[in-house]
């Protein structure tokens, strides 16, 4: 496909022009406005606001809970993706479709429902609280809400990759004497690891910015269970626009870093796929551990 010399198809200028104008007006200009506003403060002042006691605590809660939620999803998501691809069970198509529920269900609905479930008299709370473990209105509630919201990411990034694993490689490993566990650790896991990491990063990035589901279950106590997006809103409501802007700019910077690392990961995954090991090498590696 080397039709680069002259363009046969019409509409390139119009399509690209419209794309660039619309992108600039709706996305780039407003984001630029935020950075411009933040520059009124200067770097030192932004850092002073971001590293204040309350902001720092909010960042810690936000990133800590997001990390835990993404880790929970990495673990369970791997199992869910595995059983959805490899094992037959009744109602599988229904379960597969249900995995996307968190993408389709408005976050506010998730928030009030999870808060009700985990409250002291809720379906789950009534069993958990007598054990001395409170979820609703504590930082653990934030982890639960974020786990729900980001549940599909790991499953959906892993599923196609697990589907792509050729069973021949596993057979080769087994025929060379590798146990099932060795095959998993040495052949399957390395093949799906980049995708697992990508899913984790996507889940983490989404969780960091989440607001709607969290505020209902968090309790929102400053220093303890207050997330950064909520702190931005409360600053805004107190007409502290500059304070809100400073926090927003820091969040934006961190989100860009995450987006960048996701892109790098995906590029890495694609590259690995291209120069993936020949069958025999992978199989021999697995059996190497069996000797």
């Amino acid at each position, binding site marked *: 496909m080397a039709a680069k010399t002259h363009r*046969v*198809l*019409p*509409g*390139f200028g119009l*399509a*690209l022009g*419209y*794309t660039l104008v*619309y*992108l600039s007006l*709706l*996305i780039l200009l*407003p*984001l630029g*406005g*935020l950075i411009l506003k933040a520059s009124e403060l200067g770097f030192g002042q932004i850092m002073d606001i971001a590293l204040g006691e309350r902001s720092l605590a909010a960042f810690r809660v936000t990133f800590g809970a997001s990390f835990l939620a993404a880790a929970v999803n990495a673990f*369970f998501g791997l*199992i869910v993706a595995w*059983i959805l691809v490899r*094992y037959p*069970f009744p109602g599988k*198509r229904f*379960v597969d*479709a*249900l*995995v996307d*529920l968190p*993408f*389709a*269900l*408005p976050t*506010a*609905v998730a928030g*009030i*429902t999870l808060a009700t479930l985990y409250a002291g008299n809720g379906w789950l709370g009534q069993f958990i609280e007598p054990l001395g473990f409170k979820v609703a209105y504590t930082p653990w509630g934030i982890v639960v809400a974020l*786990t*729900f919201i980001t*549940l599909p990411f790991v499953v959906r990034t892993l599923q196609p990759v697990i589907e792509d694993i050729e*069973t021949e490689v596993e057979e080769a490993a*087994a*025929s060379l004497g590798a146990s*099932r566990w060795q095959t998993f650790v040495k052949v399957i896991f390395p093949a799906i690891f980049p995708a697992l990491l990508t899913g984790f990063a996507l889940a983490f990035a989404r969780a*960091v*910015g989440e*607001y*709607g589901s969290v505020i209902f279950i968090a309790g929102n106590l400053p220093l303890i269970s207050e997330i*950064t*997006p909520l702190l*931005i*809103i409360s600053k*805004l409501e107190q007409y502290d*626009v500059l304070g*809100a802007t400073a926090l*927003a700019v820091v*969040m*934006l910077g961190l*989100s860009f870093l*995450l*987006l960048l690392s996701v892109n790098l990961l995906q590029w890495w995954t694609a590259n690995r796929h291209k120069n993936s090991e020949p069958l025999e090498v992978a199989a021999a590696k697995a059996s190497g551990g069996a000797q």
Partner: protein
Amino acid sequence: MKSTRATQEPVWVRYTLLTIGLSFLFFFLGLPLLAVFVEALAQGVPVYIEALKEPETASAIWLTVGIALAVLPFNIVFGVAAAWAIAKFEFKGKSLLITLIDLPFAVSPVVAGLIFILLFGSQGTFGEWLSEHDIKIIFAVPGMILATLFITFPFIARELIPLMQAQGKDEEEAAVSLGASGWQMFIRVTLPNIKWGLLYGVILSNARAMGEFGAVSVVSGHIRGETNTLPLHVEILYNEYNAIGAFAAASILALLALVTLVAKTIVEWRMKKETEMLNTVLAPEKT
């Protein structure tokens, strides 16, 4: 999938994994979904119906639908235009453009709302000019539409770009060389090829538009009966300890989510069928 003993886990491992995976999904997805409807119907169907008939809930439903309909044409036109330029032509900075299209996914909804307040709020860049001309954007519906446009910006383009890249440009080039005008080519060749992908993107962006909370909440001003979408109304009712009302409104949104999932599954199934067809027809040409 063919599976032999060598490539299967022992039975007890299989059952353990199935139990762990399905329990996780039950506690984190099934139970919450069930709880929405049980809570909404906790005091019987008549009370539920009454809660839905409340004028503020009804107006919230209409505003939600209205905003979703308002953003739809913008998203479709942008999605198709961006995918057309990116998938069918070569130009410098293409991968940067693709990254920029994904940008809204990396921005917290709260920040998305904030940037429009900085531009159009009373103390914002254009605030003075807007108030002189008596135009309200923030704490009014136009601001909510802007915030929703920002949040749903990538959805359709993201679906169409890989699809149109995979389809190549042979068919369109054939149409043009046979004398079709640009518009004829688009309507007769491109649109039929991308219709399922486009519909898929529309379903996803629509679900997000109707359910968006954070971004819309920041710019809405929470004026009851005027700038309350259904998700925002859920919050108000819940904070007023009106659990039945909150969950009744929530149940509408949950039903919408279920419709979205069903529609999405059907479209996915159709798309899969068409790519399979495409692959069997074009298999020798593709590398």
